[in-house]
């Protein structure tokens, strides 16, 4: 509990309801993009999740656009896959819960 610790309210506003998580995951489903990894937080009372979509270079702009139009935008990290030519991207999202235990 030092001065650099984040505000409690920053965690509160980042929490996702189960319905909001469904909306988030539904973005990939609508675009026909496969979710290769999903880790829900807060079982049995979901308040967040992390996961990964594997997308082609052509699918990436659509996925990012759809995600940034959500009311709650998750943290996103995009990793190119394939050397020297990028064949795919892993789009990793982190939404909601930052539980400490």
């Amino acid at each position, binding site marked *: 509990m030092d001065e650099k610790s984040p*505000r409690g*309210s920053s965690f509160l506003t980042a929490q996702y309801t189960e319905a909001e998580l469904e909306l988030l995951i539904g973005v990939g489903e609508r675009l026909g993009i496969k979710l290769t990894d999903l880790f829900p937080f807060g079982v049995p009372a979901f308040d967040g999740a992390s996961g990964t979509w594997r997308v082609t270079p052509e699918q990436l702009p659509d996925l990012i656009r759809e995600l940034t139009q959500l009311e709650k935008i998750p943290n996103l990290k995009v990793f190119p896959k394939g050397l020297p030519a990028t064949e795919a991207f892993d789009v990793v999202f982190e939404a909601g819960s930052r539980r400490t235990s």
Partner: protein
Amino acid sequence: MRFTGARGVVQVHPTRRCNLTCVHCYSESGPKAADELPLPVLGDLVADAAALGYEVLAVSGGEPFMYPHLPGFLRQAKAAGLTCLLTSNGTLVSPRRLEPLAGCLDLLVLSLDGPRPEHDRMRARDGAYDAMARRIGAVRQAGIPFGFLFTLTQHNVHQLAWAAEFAAASGASLLQVHPLEASGRGRSLYHAVPDATEGAYALLEVARLRLAFGETLRFQLDLAPAAALAAFLRELTAAGDGGELAGILSPLVVEPDGWCVPWQYGFPREFALGSLFQDRLPQLAKSWAAGALPALHDVARAVGRQLGEPGAPVVVNGYERLAWAALASAGGGG
């Protein structure tokens, strides 16, 4: 008019001895603290307090279970007709210690500062959470109604929902949320005192949790919207200084050295009623009403005015706000 609603509360700290040295302890209690009030003084106090209109005794500390005369004290309070509440860190609760309190204790409140890592960090003791949690069964078995006391900091409002779930699952009837105060050992945690933003989030979160838990769990938040506090202080000071003590001063706080102070542990002694080692409560109350009470009302009026000024915080800890204003008024800075 009183902070504690319909019933006058006398809050007693019979000892500063404690088995823990919590990092936020406002009374700087610990194993080496020696202050302790003799049972005869407390016996007179509860009888006098009841006669002056107080209906509730709230025992805190130090750790009350380290006060050797606790059962006798509570028996005398009960005999005086008081409802008895007790706040404990929970680590010393056991069937052996609870058995003598049967019939004397109306509510036991256990400290809960978050999930295990946060709780143990606040309590400055690895294993404090587990020690408290495994004793809840003994409280349930004793049939004593119980609740939890959560210390709100700048960093943990998001854990209120967790605390409510924990409390409800444990069979508790109350979750009290008290903001961290930068007093006593808590002075070193001044940066973790919840600001108005975190206070406002706590207000909303408690409102949400009240709806979610309904009758299952009661919530008490020791923070108030500034406008509500300002209105309350106007009424408090307009009500004047007539009537019995419990009607004009609640909570009345009795510290481990016998001093009786208004509203909050550590309240500046310029506004105190005096020491129970000097006189009994009715005599202290009489001279206080004629002496310090008008000055205390001046402080309350000034705080009320400040809360109405532009830029005032939206949500405040009323007790702390008044204590700081009283300290400044007494020349101790602010």
